[in-house]
């Protein structure tokens, strides 16, 4: 970063410049700067939901695209996510107070036998950023955890993640159990993880395989809107 950029005083930027600067700071994974900028926008009377969608999600979308295109790599994405998390930490209680629009509810977790959660955590964060309520079950989840949570939380979406070739077949165990219990079609089932692909998602009976967090958000929105349309038609 140049000296000139180092000298930027966030509070002296107008709103448009500040949002642009937040995009840059998210891209560079600068958590403290993001937290400062979020507070400045709040002081200027911005709605928490607008800060979230226009500044944070907007910035992370650029990060997501550059990750997809091979310009950014995992470490940079994690730093950006960490910065966004800092901003969301400030906004989350305010979003609840101000009644921000809710897209739907997702239960998400890494499957049994798998302790990897980087991808899952990114999806959780981006889904929250997009207005979904997310119940994160963490790692190493047997089928019982998923079924109990989707029922208790009255979830719209079940998300499952796996990083290992050896653990990804467990997703089918969960879906098959849902079929056996006659509840499969009550939920949108999204799956993701590095060794998965679209073919695998179809083969195990998921609604969709999501390549990355941005795709997960878009897919979830699409399925939720389809569900609403079906309900309206029915």
């Amino acid at each position, binding site marked *: 970063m140049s000296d000139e950029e180092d000298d930027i005083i966030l509070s002296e930027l107008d709103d448009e410049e500040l949002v642009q600067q937040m995009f840059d700071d998210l891209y560079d994974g600068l958590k403290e700067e993001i937290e400062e900028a979020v507070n400045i926008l709040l002081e200027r009377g911005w709605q928490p939901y607008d800060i979230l969608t226009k500044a944070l999600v907007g910035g992370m979308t650029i990060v997501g695209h550059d990750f997809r295109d091979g310009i950014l790599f*995992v*470490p940079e994405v994690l*730093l950006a996510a960490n910065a966004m998390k800092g901003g969301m930490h400030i906004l989350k209680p305010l979003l609840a107070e101000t009644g921000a629009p809710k897209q739907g509810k997702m239960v998400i977790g890494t499957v049994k036998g798998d*302790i990897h959660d980087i991808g899952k955590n990114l999806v959780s964060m981006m889904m929250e950023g997009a207005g979904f309520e997310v119940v994160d079950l963490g790692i190493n989840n047997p089928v019982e955890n998923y079924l109990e949570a989707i029922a208790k939380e009255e979830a719209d979406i079940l998300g499952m993640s796996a990083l*290992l070739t*050896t653990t990804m077949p467990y997703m089918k165990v969960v879906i098959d159990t849902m079929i056996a219990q006659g509840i499969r079609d009550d939920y949108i089932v999204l799956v993701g993880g590095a*060794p998965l*692909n679209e073919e695998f998602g179809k083969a195990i009976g998921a609604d969709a395989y999501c390549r990355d967090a941005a795709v997960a958000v878009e897919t979830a929105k699409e399925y939720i809107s389809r569900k609403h349309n079906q309900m309206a038609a029915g």
Partner: protein
Amino acid sequence: MALVRMNGWSQVDLTCLPAILHNHPEKITDAVRDAVARHRGNYRRVAIVYADCGTGGLLEQACNEMGVEMVPGPHCYAFFDGLHRFAAREELTAFYLTDFLTRQFDAFVWKPLGLDRHPELLDMYFGHYETLVYLAQTDDPVLTASARQAADRMGLAFERRFTGYGELATTLERWAVC
């Protein structure tokens, strides 16, 4: 390479793909397809010394289509340790190093994960791991010390497990002498 040399398999040629492909498993299948297409005309038999290695079954599918054999199992840790033994251990929280990965720890683990520049990411990557298991192919005190040092850097307990070349040796022997 060590097995070919040790066993004197002069009839076997080895073509290596870049080892760093293991950090990008989505590129392995196409790289193997290209290598098979390039070499199969010159040999009676072509075999793939990769396990699934994070390709999610795509490499196996490609090998079946091409009519070539590959090493069974999920990854090299499993075939060094023995497929059944490895599965039975159910070591969810173990991070594995082999001789190769111990030698190349910085180039293949530490730097690609950005930990040289951003050590604060360590917990995001390895927060759920507990032990570093060094699957040793050889008896080398220097490598053991390096593996132990890697465990210390990652904040993990250390275990050394001598495996030799495990099922890689028996699989290659079957291919080499048939």
